[in-house]
């Protein structure tokens, strides 16, 4: 049986990760410049891959609320987006909400940039204040 929920608390260099597969809510929050991307994100990407491998049409909501990330984390994000896009292409309803501070030009542009390859995923840019907590 696949992982139901994967949670990793935030540290000063890594984001809070809460992938609640059972309820279809995945979230990444905080800053991301880990010393070792593979150790942090390896299990996360593996769990996502495993979850998406089983066909399902339950909706999936992904919230990304990063205030800072390094290049390796960017590559991981793109990998995750690709996995989500593949699932969406198969017919699974997937939404990605990219939260960023209204003053944070950089993060907004990164969001726009990263969504370029998403065709089937419903991607939206949101202001950090909008998040319903």
């Amino acid at each position: 049986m696949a992982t139901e929920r994967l949670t990793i608390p935030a540290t000063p260099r890594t984001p809070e990760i809460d992938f609640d597969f059972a309820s279809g809510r995945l979230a990444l929050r905080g800053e991301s410049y880990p010393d070792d991307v593979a150790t942090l994100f390896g299990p996360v990407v593996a769990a996502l891959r495993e979850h998406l491998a089983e066909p399902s049409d339950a909706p999936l909501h992904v919230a990304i609320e990063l205030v800072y990330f390094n290049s390796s984390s960017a590559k991981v994000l793109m990998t995750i987006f690709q996995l989500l896009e593949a699932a969406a292409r198969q017919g699974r309803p997937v939404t990605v909400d990219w939260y960023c501070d209204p003053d944070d030009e950089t993060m907004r542009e990164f969001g726009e940039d990263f969504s370029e390859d998403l065709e089937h995923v419903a991607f939206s840019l949101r202001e950090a204040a909008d998040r319903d907590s």
Partner: protein
Amino acid sequence: MNFNLFDAEEQVIERAQALEARLTALAPEVGAELAELVDGFKRSYREQRRLVRVSDRLQGQLATANQEAERRRREAEDALERLREAQDVLVQQEKLASLGALVAGVAHEINTPVGIAVSCASHLSDATARLTAMVEKGELGRGDFNRYLATATDTTALILANCERAAQLINSFKQVAVDRASAERRGFDLRAYVQETLLSLQPNLKRGNHTVTVDCPPGLMVEGYPGALSQILTNLVMNSLTHGYGDGRAGRLRIAVTQPDPETVCLTYADDGAGIPPGNLPHVFEPFFTTRRGEGGSGLGLHIVHNLAVGPLKGSITVESPPGQGAAFALTFPRVAPG
């Protein structure tokens, strides 16, 4: 000409797409597989573009942060520099102010004996003029002459005493201006040197049956100005004898040397005499502060001691006098005088 960072990649994609078209015409199954590979390469190319943008942004932010940090560091340094300058100015002003106070004090002190000498001299001059007039008129009597002699004797004695007092004041004033350049700098054994200084004070100590104990680690070598140290000790001892044991009591003086750390020397000097009233304690190092005005005290002794301690010795001196326990002075200075 337009520069394209990803020119090579785009050319590869174009060639791959051309190849894909040709291959699809020849072998459709292989063409589809190649199309997938070409798609993969295109995605990887887009990701590469994105990553370059991400890392450019991050480096840009880092550079901005560094510049900001550098700017703040410079600002902090400038502020520190300005603070130092302001401090120097203050120190300079304070020196001038204390010099001013000293000069005013000296002028005031010297004014009294000089004033007395001047009025005595003019009195003598008047008396002499009267005597001369009487001699010229041939009216000089024996009584007049004797009166003149009495006046001359009194006034010359007063003139002499007051001029001596003025000279003495000028002498102690000269000592206040400690001439560091002429002071000899050398290495010396502290205990031996303290004992040597006390030896020169023996006549004064013996007269009142005073005893001195010295507690100093043997072989403690100090590099600095022995002359300043001996002047300090002499002043402290003489003060104890004059102010502490005025009633003729035999005193017990103690000198103890400790080293809070190997490069710092702390010399405490204590007597068990009358002590200093709490109200006077804050003033004893001030120039012209004395409780023996008119009895030979100029109030410069401890001021000189203080100047020597902070000047040549580059240290500090403090005073304590718990009621009923005499007076104690703590002199702290670097084992090796800087500069």
